[in-house]
């Protein structure tokens, strides 16, 4: 699969190249083209990650318009869908992530908020 590179992807895709061998948080965002909803979702996700997981996360964006076969293999129904691949267990969140409070809760990020960023 190929990661879509959004305009400002410095914080995301650059991290694997950083000294840390593996990102602690592996997130994957499924979208269908550059729709307002997918752009909102991506922006929201990045904001939340920067806020809580700066430097410890990796975001992979998958455009199903380009890889429609992945919709079936990854069991995607609704878009946008965010999948937390790591840490286990895998979690799914659908929607444009506009309510960051609840996303934080849903991803169990609140415990991390106090930890050094």
């Amino acid at each position: 699969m190929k990661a879509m590179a959004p305009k400002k992807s410095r914080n995301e895709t650059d991290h694997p190249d950083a000294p840390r061998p593996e990102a602690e948080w592996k997130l994957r965002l499924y979208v269908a083209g550059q729709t307002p909803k997918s752009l909102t979702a991506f922006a929201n996700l990045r904001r939340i990650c920067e806020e809580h997981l700066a430097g410890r996360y990796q975001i992979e964006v998958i455009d199903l318009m380009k890889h429609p076969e992945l919709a079936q293999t990854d069991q995607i129904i609704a878009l946008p869908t965010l999948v937390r691949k790591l840490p286990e267990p895998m979690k799914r969140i659908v929607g444009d992530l506009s309510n960051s409070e609840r996303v934080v809760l849903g991803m169990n990020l609140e415990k991390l908020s106090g930890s050094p960023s």
Partner: protein
Amino acid sequence: MRKPTSRLTLLKKVPTGINGFDEITGGGLPAGRPTLVCGSAGCGKSLFGLEFLIRGATEYGDPGVLMTFEESADDIRKNVASLGFDIEALIAKKKLVIDFVRVERGEIEEHGEYDLEGLFIRLAHSIAAIGAKRVVLDTIETLFAGLSNEAILRSELRRLFGWLKERGMTTVITGERAGDQLTRQGLEEFISDCVIFLDHRVVGHVSTRRLRVVKYRGSTHGTNEYPFLIDENGISILPITSSDLEYEVSTERVSTGVPGLDEMLGGLGYYRGSTVLLSGTAGTGKTSVAAHLAQATCARGERCLFFSFEESASQILRNMRTVGVDLQPFVRQEVLLIHSARPTVYGLEMHLVQIHKMIAQFQPAVVIVDPVSNLKTAGTIEESSALFIRLIDFLRKKGILGFLVSLTSGANALEATDEGISSMVDTWLLLRDLESNGERNKVLHVLKSRGMNHSNQVREFHITSKGVKLVDAYLGPAGVLTGSARLAQEAHEAADAERSKQEMERREMALSHRRNAMEAQIKALRAAFDADAEEFRKTADYERIRLGKIEIDREAMARSRRVTERSKKNNHK
């Protein structure tokens, strides 16, 4: 989304290939439109969808996509393998795509706006992969369990159905019934073209499946409930309303297999393609008459299908062998097929569908159902009589001679069949017991036989080791007598005859004695008379002689006297 490439007329239909369904809908499902197939759990809606795809792929060359929300592709593969469908081959040939959409409650969290574009992409991808023409969504309502934003779901579903319509996909959408609503989420409000309702009812411990076309826009359709059956060949629907009274009749006659019975039916037997009802009380030999018909049919080289709802095939073969009807060779030659089933093994409709299917496969000239009366234990009386009417219609249309055996229970009036089919049948034979003088004897009547000069007489019915025999019953001034009463009466009559014969002889002898006596007497009288006559003659002769002598004497005397006189005279002178 893509604009519709061609304008579809409302009445264009896509055949489902499902046995009987295309008949009742006049061609199948509306082409390029979604159809809702709904019903409670286990009603067969998923199978309907699946068969629509499989038949479409195998019989009409239409590739299809199955999007399943409840069962995994693996489960489906296993389920339909038992129905004789080879899904693997269809998938390999790119005729079928199965996409299992896994939706689990609580697994997905929702934050903010979303849509179901993922589902659209999956579907579009599958459709494009094989050039699908048919789509089945089974059961899309499951989405409501996994995703909580109903407003989004509903609008997205509406969009999905519209999208499928735009692409010209003939789609089956299944939905589960809930309460008064056809589907839990009211899918029927989105799908206005065609709604089919499947039902699975249990009446008297027997389940019956039914199908109803609730709505079919732009098409006439039967509004009845059609019974259907699910078996190893998938769904079979039995149209009732296609039964009408238009069929060809034959003037050809076929033997009943019982010589005496042929004679009673104008000497020629039944009409080919007619319906014969044989009713009778227990143990009157109904099955034997049926077996004779089977034997006669098979001996002509025609096929006979024997439905037995009481005895197993081997039991019939054994029992009939003891009355001199050996059906075994015909079974071996496959001109006779005996199908045994318990009446309660499934509902009436299922039986009828089963009968239809077997007839279609075996193509018999004669169908025997023994007994039809047992079938009513599988349903209500109303249902069973409707069933028999349909069965009779079906047989007549196919030109098959139907021989229905009905057991009348002892308490019922013999000439009343509870199945209410007697008015439908062409020939009605009645076997009954006559009880008299401490024995039961069987007699056979022909109650009616349309279009032939049939006997009005009662025949005594014997089951011998060489088959069924009909004996003329005793018909005399003392009434109709059978069995030993007939024999007694016959002996009695013979004795009577003998007695009167002897009496006559005696009288004759007496007369001849009298004649002899008379003649002897006459002889004696004649003898006496002769004797008298002789005597008289002798006396007469004697008299005559005597008289002659007297004359002579007198003359002599006179002469002498004259002499004296003369002398006297002379003396005087």
